[in-house]
């Protein structure tokens, strides 16, 4: 971590440089606020406007009054509450499976290190280089008829949860983090008679909290954002999450109610982002570090 950046303290002391820097930073702040917040604030405003207002004067502020009823109409009549609950359920399950696979897998490959560990690590790593699209159709056929057990996961949440667990990025991130933990702690725990499970639960997991936080937050968010895969494996409407349902209800409800539904669908991810901001921003930089 350097204590200086491109401009030196000397540069910053010069009036001309200082003012150009301030101007550039002010400009970027305004641009970011307009570009990032603008569409979201517009949606927040439109979701409590009447359809007429939104269509005729999209940039005016409530010429015919605020219409709070849109939100409750969307939540109740358009059954957004139901699909919201589905989405929470999809995201929680995906989060749990991803965390389970990443912790147990990372633990075995990094800490226990059986003789076959390098081969498994290589096989996990290899899937990182296969573009997701290649497996789309074969994965669908696998979910339709699981080999050996010959069960179909179609129209069950397992069809979303289990494939989410096959995330090489998570496994490698956790493994790499555990690689950096001090190994003498394990030896001490082993001396005290801790078995592999005990060691995972009371030694490794507590020390891995930072990375598990990052994995959790991205697992949940990515499950919330996912569209193509749930649309393929959950054709039953009552099971579908918001992302699959929204394009379909676009034609069945009024515009103001639809925009309110869009706002409700983005609310939870944004709240989670604002609450766990630090975790997100650290994780995003970390993603680059692992990729690079």
């Amino acid at each position, binding site marked *: 971590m350097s204590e200086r950046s491109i401009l030196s303290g000397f540069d910053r002391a010069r009036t001309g440089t200082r003012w150009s820097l301030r101007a550039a930073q002010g400009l970027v702040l305004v641009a970011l606020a307009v570009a990032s917040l603008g569409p979201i604030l517009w949606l927040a405003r439109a979701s409590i406007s009447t359809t007429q207002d939104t269509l005729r004067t999209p940039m005016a502020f409530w010429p015919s009054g605020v219409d709070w009823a849109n939100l409750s109409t969307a939540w109740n009549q358009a059954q957004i509450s139901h699909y919201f609950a589905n989405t929470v359920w999809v995201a929680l399950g995906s989060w749990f499976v991803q965390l389970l696979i990443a912790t147990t897998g990372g633990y075995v490959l990094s800490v226990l290190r059986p003789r076959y560990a390098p081969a498994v690590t290589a096989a996990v790593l290899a899937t990182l280089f296969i*573009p997701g699209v290649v497996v789309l159709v*074969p994965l669908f056929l696998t979910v339709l008829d699981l080999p050996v057990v010959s069960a179909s996961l179609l129209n069950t949440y397992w069809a979303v949860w289990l494939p989410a667990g096959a995330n*090489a990025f998570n496994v490698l991130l956790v493994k790499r983090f555990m690689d950096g933990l001090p190994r003498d702690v394990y030896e001490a725990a082993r001396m005290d008679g801790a078995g592999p499970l005990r060691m995972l639960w009371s030694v490794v997991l507590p020390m891995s909290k930072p990375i598990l936080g990052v994995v959790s937050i991205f697992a949940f968010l990515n499950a919330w954002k996912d569209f193509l895969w749930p649309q393929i494996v959950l054709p039953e409407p009552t099971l579908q999450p918001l992302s699959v349902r929204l394009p379909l209800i676009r034609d069945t409800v009024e515009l103001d109610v639809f925009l309110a539904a869009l706002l409700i669908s983005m609310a939870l991810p944004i709240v989670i982002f604002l609450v766990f901001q630090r975790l997100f921003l650290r994780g995003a*930089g970390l993603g680059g570090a692992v990729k690079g």
Partner: protein
Amino acid sequence: MNATLRWVRGGGLSTLLLLLPLLLVFGYFAWFPIGRAVVMSFQETNLVTDPAWVGLDNFRRVLEDPLFWTSVRNTFYFTGLALLFGYPVPLVLAVVMSELRRGRGLYSALAYLPVVVPPVVAVLLWRFFYDASQTGVFNTILGWAGLGPFSWIQDASSAMPSLVLQATWANAGATVLIYLAALTAVRGDLYDAAEVDGAGLWRKIWHVTLPQLRAILLITLILQVIATFQVFTEPYLMTNGGPQNATVTVLLQIYNYAFRFGDYGAATALSVLLALFLAVLSAVYFRLTRSWSTT
């Protein structure tokens, strides 16, 4: 027998049991489907009768499809535009943000906010913004400056740039943060040394900052290309390939083969072709850039 017993006593069994969830999930949902993709591209699969070997028929059908070259051209166009819009902007933002003494958290949060908006919500919202009428959201704003109205996604020539604009809005923030992390890792004494040699701002950026970011810039470039080649949600929900097939992408073709026409063989054949192309592209890219990324 003794060896097995010793293996179990030594914790070999519990280790294997702990690894079992990973092996099962990756086996069923990663390794097996990858292998199956290759096999299926040479088979006719219809879910009713047993798959039959058809040689290169699937590939021939895909390549002879009049939409094949359209989709390839469109995908290249999308990727090219996405690089043009989305590659320099995050870099400039990150450089300006790295000069902040205070408030970097606010800038980062603002930059990252669109990334957490679910893509379906963002696409449907932008689809409304792109309303081609005089009272569309973007047309109203541009109308204040006396511009427009534009037809955005309704016109074959402006549809693809419109999709790219939305995709850039949705994804640029993640790249900004990756660059920002890399920028704060640049050693300060390199700038000190450049200043001793009399370098001004632009020469410091050109001779210190950019070379120090070279590795991360190269890797984000190829990752962005790989990701944009698989674009799906935007063309599917915004334009569904139209108008006049101007936004049919390779992934949309794959989706249509499999889930509209039930032609799983053609879908996997096209997937395999795309994967091969991306693999060759990455290999060539890393070979070409290896010599300049190690400095």
